[in-house]
């Protein structure tokens, strides 16, 4: 609808239209309100301009008017509030089964890891019509992942995962901006989102997947770091079994129950004593500083992959070949 109108961003995600609709409503509401107020002022100021022989009338005010012009705006505001909240819930609730892409922000570039193992820098290729969930972290300061054409933005923080999701509706190339000020080359921390037809995307993927999948790389790393010594799948180990743990509630030693989401898995690797599973001792070593953000993403992807049924699942066993580890140069 707005593609040929140069003062409007491309509208290329499933919820971009909803955001634009609310925006257009608010623009019209603002125009109407401004017109009403400015016209009233203009009429009062000219009709009641100072003329000799006419005095200003003495008026104290009107409680009815005051109540009316408090309640009516409040009612309109509440409608906008609910409308905005509904869209926000859409934007922040990734659908089940979305394809996951891990994002690492650093001064001043974006590093992206596909589930299939393909890695990209400052460029993200995705298929049109698929739900994509971004699992993002930063290895230094706060950044923000912003795609204007999709109307999505999410800050990317060091030390935790934040998530965002979208479904692209139109093939094309769109801006990726860092929108949280992050230092000297903040305005250079830009890239592009390449939305492709599914067939083209598959071809691109096949061409680029030199490495193993994210989860199989994670499995290799898992073995290399000696994790299976305690986290045996037969559950007789000194640590809890990880099979099927992702997304489930976990009872902790201090009586709390937490959901084992990405942030929990991440924290349990980096500082294991923060949340110890009930029935286990805090004996796991700290991996803070031993694994970098991309390796951490692989480990998390591996633990998550343990949820899937063994048949046909990618990287669901410990037997993945150790030779598939990433060879990407360190930065």
């Amino acid at each position, binding site marked *: 609808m707005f593609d040929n109108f140069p003062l409007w961003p491309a509208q290329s995600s499933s919820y971009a239209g909803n955001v634009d609709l609310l925006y257009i409503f608010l623009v019209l509401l603002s125009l109407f309100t401004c017109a009403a107020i400015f016209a009233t002022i203009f009429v009062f100021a000219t009709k009641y301009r100072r003329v000799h022989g006419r005095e200003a009338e003495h*008026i104290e005010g009107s409680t009815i008017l005051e109540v009316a012009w408090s309640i009516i705006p409040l009612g309109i505001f*509440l409608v906008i*509030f609910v409308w*905005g909240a509904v869209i926000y819930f859409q934007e922040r609730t990734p659908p089940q089964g979305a394809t996951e892409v891990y994002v690492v922000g650093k001064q001043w570039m974006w590093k992206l890891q596909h589930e299939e193992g393909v890695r990209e820098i400052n460029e993200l290729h995705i298929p049109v019509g698929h739900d994509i969930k971004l699992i993002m972290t930063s290895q230094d300061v706060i950044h923000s992942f912003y795609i204007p054409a999709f109307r999505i933005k999410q800050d990317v923080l060091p030390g935790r995962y934040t998530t965002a999701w979208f479904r692209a509706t139109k093939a094309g190339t769109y801006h990726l901006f860092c929108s949280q000020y992050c*230092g000297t080359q903040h*305005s250079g921390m830009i890239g592009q989102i390449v939305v492709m037809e599914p067939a083209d995307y598959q071809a691109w993927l096949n061409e680029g997947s030199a490495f193993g999948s994210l989860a199989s790389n994670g499995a290799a790393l898992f073995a290399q770091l000696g994790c299976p010594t305690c986290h045996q799948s037969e559950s007789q180990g000194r640590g809890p079994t990880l099979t099927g743990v992702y997304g489930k509630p976990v009872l902790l030693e201090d009586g709390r129950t937490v959901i084992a989401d990405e942030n929990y898995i991440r924290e349990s690797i980096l*500082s294991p004593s923060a949340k110890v599973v009930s029935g286990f001792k805090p004996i796991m070593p700290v991996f803070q500083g031993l694994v970098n953000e991309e390796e951490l993403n692989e480990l998390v992807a591996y633990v998550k992959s343990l949820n899937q049924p063994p048949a046909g699942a990618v990287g669901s066993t410990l037997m993945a070949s150790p030779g598939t580890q990433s060879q990407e140069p360190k930065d």
Partner: protein
Amino acid sequence: MATTANFTAERENYLNANYGVRSWLLTTDHKRIALLYLASITFFFFVGGFFALMIRLELLTPAGDLVMADTYNKLFTMHGQIMVFFFLIPSIPATLGNFLVPMMIGAKDLAFPRINLISWYLYIIGGTLMMHCVLTGGVDTGWTFYTPFSTAFSNTKVIEAGLAIFINGFSSILTGLNFVVTVHRMRAPGMTWTRLPLFIWSTYATSVIFLLGTPVIAITLLLVVFERAFHLGIFDPNRGGDPLLFQHLFWFYSHPAVYIMILPAMGVISEIIPCFSRKRVFGYNFIAMSSIAIAVFGFLVWAHHMFVAGISLYSALVFSALSYLVAVPSAVKVFNWTATMYKGSVTFSTPMLYAFGFIGLFTIGGLTGLFLAALGLDVHVHDTYFVIAHFHYIMVGGAVMGFLGGMHFWWPKISGKLYPEAWGRLAAAIVFIGFNLTFFPQFVLGYMGMPRRYWQYPPEFQVLNVLSTAGSTILAVGYLLPMVYFTWSLRYGKPAGNNPWGAAGLEWQTQSPPTTFNFDEIPIVTQEAYDYENIPAPEEVPLER
């Protein structure tokens, strides 16, 4: 001219009571301290304005070509810090507030005249440190000091800038304390709370925010300084700290700080409109109470700056809803100002033009605030030029228009001289046009997706950026003009007389400029505020150049 001025012996007033640098630097007269503040904030306004022009010139082309990236980052950081902390926050309270609060309530001075002078010195110490920081390398964190960039990554003078703002904060706290005590304890006989001019109500609400909010920013900046100097780990996720904690603390002050800037301007407008409509203000109680409501609710909306920062879905909901509540009292004020003109006797003198400009720009700023408080929409426009445009409509369109309107309204009282009315109206029009040309295109830029704090940008954003830069040069002319004709009027302006506008309010019953102790005898108040029924309208000020 000069000979005539010398020929008529001037009456004694606060300006000629004594002479010499000492008599100014050691004064405890609230009016002289107001002028000390006026000179200081004007200096910082032009420093901050110079940075703004440099920013706009850099953005004339998509490539980063005028200054280096680091220089650009320092320009917008120091533009923000100087304009917010050293101009906008003290602007109306410390100048017009200092000058008017005692006079409006019929007092000889503020409750603590020496603390008032100390507050100016704290401002000067903080400001000097800030200027030292600027001249010896500056700071590049953005005025928001977000961690962990400010604590662990920036290589600039974060500690010095933080301390400068820390020290300056105490100047605000002392000013707020002084106003609260003065309004409670020093009102003239008969000056009941419901007879207070609305400027006093809004200054009082501002002072409450000064007292409750400023300590929080002081502590927050101190934490940043300590973390940077001693690596405490409060905001460092690698040591169990939380970078988001900083944002909560920062905005807990810095959102109410927006109301520190806009409430006093609303007070000014509430004085100007009744005067040039020759009518009591419409809905006095509602305007007064809406100031208090803004001050209270303003403390409960801070996380609306953090909808994409990583806060929970449900806290975002609460802060969005509360943000819509705080919009109601602002809307109520606009409606009441408009209604005040109904069946009035309206004239279009310079202060009234600024009041019209204020209502127009503040309304647009307020309405675009509704866009930003809408959660799903804020995700798109947050940290883009839409936000930049929105808060400049509030802070520059609102607060600065209010400040200039107030300066034009009370200049005859402050200086005893009239400024040239035609020039005044011309400058008001130039400011209004320049402002809209500068900032309106930024709304469009923001919705198109141009992020803020970008040194270089994709070429499709250029046309709107060029418009904005063109507007900023017009705006600069509009701001320079009053400087020129106010200064001119000090020597060549016509004597103003006690009450050139025929305005209500105790400050107009004393001579212009007032004597050191304001009133020969303490007035006894028997009338409501804005008693325009009983004050004859003066002849209109002629359009002389």
